[in-house]
């Protein structure tokens, strides 16, 4: 019986550890960033891996050290059933999202029970958007050639990033969940420019907001053989008063393997979520 085998190891440790690197690999080398600082390679971390052309080799199975960002990009305490987070906003320096007033009101609305159902990922819309896919607590696999980087998210669809500084973005009328991405190298940093978003993804379960005007510049900087420092600067003048930057570490697990997710099959959650939404709406009307 599994239970007998498991009980011995169940009661210790943070079994619900959020956003921890898979199997602890690289954890010592990549603790939470301090004040926007870069990750430090531990003695076991090794040098940056490289492709034959000399560019950093980013490929492999990763988990993000998202530090609770899927429950709020700003630092926030554990509150009831909502997990706390250390905050991943490194600019502005105060770690606060520079939201416009209407966005603050919309965010408050999204946090009511009736709106929890509205998070697209709750509907098994698997494209989490950019940058949510990079800090949601679910693994992903990076594949890389000299001309392309593909990020295969176990739960959150995929992205293709052509490495071509001369490539133009898609026509403005094309709007996508994951946006349209173009990458180029600046030294050892892969810089990815993304536009053409549809404005539908939530930035996290807290309901933080982006619009179709979102423009994201991501920087993937390997700091050792297992850790990528990931930064994303979001510019969205419809929602925010100024650009802001988030930062997390991506931790490679050489032994990690991707599993299949069939979110729509035998979905038990959606009807329940709808019931909650209906109950929430009913309560609000009273």
């Amino acid at each position: 019986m599994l239970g007998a085998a498991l009980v011995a190891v169940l009661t210790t440790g943070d079994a619900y550890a959020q956003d921890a690197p898979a199997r602890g690999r690289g954890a010592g080398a990549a603790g939470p960033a301090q004040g926007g600082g870069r990750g430090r390679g531990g003695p076991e971390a090794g040098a940056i891996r490289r492709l034959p052309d000399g560019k950093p080799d980013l490929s492999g199975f990763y988990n993000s050290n998202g530090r609770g960002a899927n429950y709020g990009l700003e630092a926030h305490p554990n509150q009831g059933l909502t997990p706390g987070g250390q905050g991943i906003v490194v600019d502005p320096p105060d770690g606060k999202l520079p939201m416009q007033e209407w966005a603050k009101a919309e965010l408050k609305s999204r946090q009511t029970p009736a709106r929890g159902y509205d998070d697209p990922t709750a509907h098994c819309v698997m494209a989490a958007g950019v940058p949510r896919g990079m800090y949601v607590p679910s693994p992903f696999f990076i594949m890389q050639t000299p001309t392309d980087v593909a990020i295969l998210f176990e739960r959150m669809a995929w992205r293709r990033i052509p490495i071509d500084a001369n490539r133009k973005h898609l026509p403005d009328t094309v709007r996508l969940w994951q946006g349209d991405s173009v990458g180029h190298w600046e030294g050892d940093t892969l810089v990815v420019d993304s536009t053409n978003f549809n404005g539908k993804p939530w930035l996290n379960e807290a309901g933080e907001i982006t619009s179709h005007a979102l423009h994201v510049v991501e920087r993937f900087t390997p700091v050792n053989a297992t850790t990528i420092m990931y930064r994303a600067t979001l510019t969205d003048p419809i929602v925010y008063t100024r650009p802001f930057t988030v930062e997390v570490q991506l931790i490679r697990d050489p032994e990690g393997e991707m599993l299949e997710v069939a979110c729509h099959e035998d979905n038990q959650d959606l009807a329940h979520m709808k019931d909650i939404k209906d109950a929430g709406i009913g309560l609000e009307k009273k």
Partner: protein
Amino acid sequence: MIRRTILAVMAAVFLVAIPAIAHHSFAAEFDETKRIKLTGKVVEMRWSNPHAWIYLDVNNNGKIERWAFETGAANGLFRRGWRKEDLPAGTVLVIEGWQARNGSNTANAGSITFPDGKRLFAGSSNPNAERQLEGK
């Protein structure tokens, strides 16, 4: 026995590190003020999407009530060492968690124990469950 050992090792390796996988707001779906602790017999451990569910028949003063407990996502449970056959129907469990906001017999499973007090990892979809249960 070999498999049991393997599972135990897998659990020891994986449990502290694999992120909980959730895709909806716990606060929206479950009521933190409706903490419950129920004992019952497993009807089915359903490896459904996007979360697995445990269905439990609970004897409430002679009346059998069926409860549904949300657990983690199937791939997260798999990485923690769970397998589909590991929780057969009829197993008596004590499940602690939080009831759904609409008052239905639905809850988020925070912890699962056997009647002798031994604890079975819940694989909760809620990464904050353990802290809440321990009053942290």
